[in-house]
């Protein structure tokens, strides 16, 4: 077992902009840390640098407090599961599992014993004499896991190990991986672009964007206290709505206007964000989780009139996309405060299986107690 630490690690390919910028990250002993971010943000690059497959441009990578920058991959004692599994096509499952052990020059008995043990653990017993070509996607995935587990690696590195599987299998193997990791207690760095995977698997989740670390926290902390609108918009399924509003003081209360209605910031929000009163008369970004929007019959105070754009009934809940006359900002830009969506769309999740006509007028109630506040640059306001 081992801990892995990244100290101001940067990566730059010749003649290109930096892919990873001054990344600090610690993966604790026995922890499953998920690295998540949109496609192209540098997750794989980072993982490959830890593995030793990619050179580091600056900074240090430490395994158990030892700098490994100069250590070749085979000396780092890490095991990796690749996105396409990278099983050796000309070897049977048994030979695939035995390969890392043979490289360690273990005795034949020991090799057989460990292969059998791993096969048992992953229920690969009846597949041992097959070639990778003769396996289903899920079985290949398990063999790849097995090849990583069969030797006593100090840590696992996994690069989107589930992305080649269908949705149902993904959920199944996801929980298998979680259970295995818990059982083996092995330090794991897991890369994915799927935030659901991140939230369900990770003890902690590191969110990356364009080569920069945004936030490292437990899934619940990430969900409840995103440090900026990018994390807010990325985490959650679907992500947070972020609106730009003008904060005003009316009768000693802080209010903001959405459409025709005036919403008063409740006491709880005022307590959460002590800095709010100083921002009266300024623009502010407000985050609203889709699940905190509810459908109400008619427009009373505290509700927003909107037109239905589309609805996705999922069975136990329905995701609504509605348009309203408000300023909705894009969460994945450098300057969210000044990047408004051309077509202001809010997302809401309502319970039950419901159908709507496009263009239908609906009224949404906002639960103001659960608002998140960000400044115009998208950074969360100081929080209690």
């Amino acid at each position, binding site marked *: 077992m081992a801990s892995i630490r990244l100290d101001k690690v940067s990566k730059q390919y010749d003649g290109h902009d930096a892919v990873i910028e001054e990344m600090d990250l610690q993966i604790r002993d026995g922890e499953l840390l998920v690295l998540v971010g949109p496609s192209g943000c540098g997750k794989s690059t980072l993982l490959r640098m830890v*593995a030793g497959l990619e050179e580091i441009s600056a900074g240090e990578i430490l395994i158990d407090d030892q700098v490994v920058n100069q250590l*070749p*991959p085979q000396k780092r004692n890490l095991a*990796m599961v*690749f996105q*396409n599994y*990278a099983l050796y096509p000309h070897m049977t499952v048994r030979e695939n599992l035995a*390969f890392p052990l043979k*490289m360690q020059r273990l005795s034949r008995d020991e090799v057989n014993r460990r292969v059998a043990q791993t096969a048992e653990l992953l229920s690969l017993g009846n597949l041992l004499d097959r070639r990778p070509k003769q396996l289903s996607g899920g079985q290949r995935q398990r063999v790849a896991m097995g090849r990583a587990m069969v030797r006593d690696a100090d840590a696992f590195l996994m690069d989107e190990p589930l992305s080649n599987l269908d949705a149902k299998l993904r959920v199944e193997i996801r929980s298998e991986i979680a259970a295995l990791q818990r059982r083996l207690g092995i330090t794991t760095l897991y890369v994915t672009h799927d935030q659901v995977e991140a939230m369900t698997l990770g003890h902690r989740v590191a969110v990356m964007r364009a080569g920069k670390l945004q936030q490292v926290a437990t899934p619940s902390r990430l969900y409840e206290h995103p440090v900026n609108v990018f994390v807010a918009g990325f985490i959650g399924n679907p992500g947070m709505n972020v609106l730009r509003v003008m904060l005003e003081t009316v009768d000693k209360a802080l209010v903001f206007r959405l459409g025709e209605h005036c919403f008063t910031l409740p006491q709880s929000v005022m307590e959460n964000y002590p800095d709010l009163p100083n921002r009266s008369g300024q623009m502010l970004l407000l985050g609203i989780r889709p699940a905190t929007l509810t459908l109400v019959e008619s427009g009373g105070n505290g509700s927003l009139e909107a037109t239905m754009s589309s609805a996705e009934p999922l069975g136990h809940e329905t995701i609504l996309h509605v348009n309203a006359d408000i300023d909705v900002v894009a969460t994945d830009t450098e300057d969210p405060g000044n990047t408004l969506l051309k077509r202001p769309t809010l997302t809401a999740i309502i319970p039950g299986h419901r159908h709507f006509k496009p263009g239908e007028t609906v009224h949404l109630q906002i639960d103001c107690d659960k608002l998140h506040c960000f400044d115009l640059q998208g950074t969360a306001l100081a929080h209690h």
Partner: protein
Amino acid sequence: MRPQRSRPGMILSYALLSVLALLFLTPVVMMLTGSLKPDERVLTEAGTLAGFIPDQASLQNYTDVFTRTDFLGFLINSLFITSTIVICGLLVNALAAYAFARLHWRGRDLLFNLVLALMILPLEAIAIPLFYGVSLLGLRDTYLAQILPFIANAFSIYLFYSFFIGLPRELEEAARLDGASTLRIFFSIILPNSKPVFASVAILSFLMWWGAYLWPLMVTIGPEVRPLPVAIAAFYTLPPLQWGDILAFGVMMVAPVLLVFLLFQRWFVRGVAASGIKG
């Protein structure tokens, strides 16, 4: 899938292909039938349809070849020289190509471009300086002179290179993480997954050196290390001139080539397709 051609188009292309096949096959068939005929009928029937009909076939010409020359000796020379070039060449060129395709070292790209440039250099252009070098080393009239200069081959390196570069990198990376050294990766991971390209390089270089004439003619003096192509030329000048015998010699010289090709044809076609040089 290519779209279905129209019927007249099909007929036309079949007709064309048949003519081509006929053109290619005619000399081979004539050689074979001629080799089975009594000597005096070979030339007289050469231009006629009778040239193709081996009535009264006999193996007399074949036994003549063995009694009049040391055919077996030449065959062994050819087999030894060619297979040594092929086998050593597979190893050397594949390793070189792997170093070009996957390892990082100073001057790699420059050197690789040089190797590519060598591909267009015909043997004839370097034959004289090469001959000079071989003479200086005192290697004339040896096997070594016929083998050594041709083991490393730019075209083989290129074929291997373009195959290796297309192999999934992750396989090698996985092996590296599993603790394998570079050589181990080459022999345990790359090689078993590259059979088609090894087969095509083997066939191509076998064909190339089996038929080599100019260079062996230059460096061999006596019959001891002489390969078949030089031997058949010498046989041709050996009086009395007997066409039937020469054709029989030719048949026996071509047979191993056909055999090798038929054996590995399946691999060969795949390898050539995979390395992207079609047509």
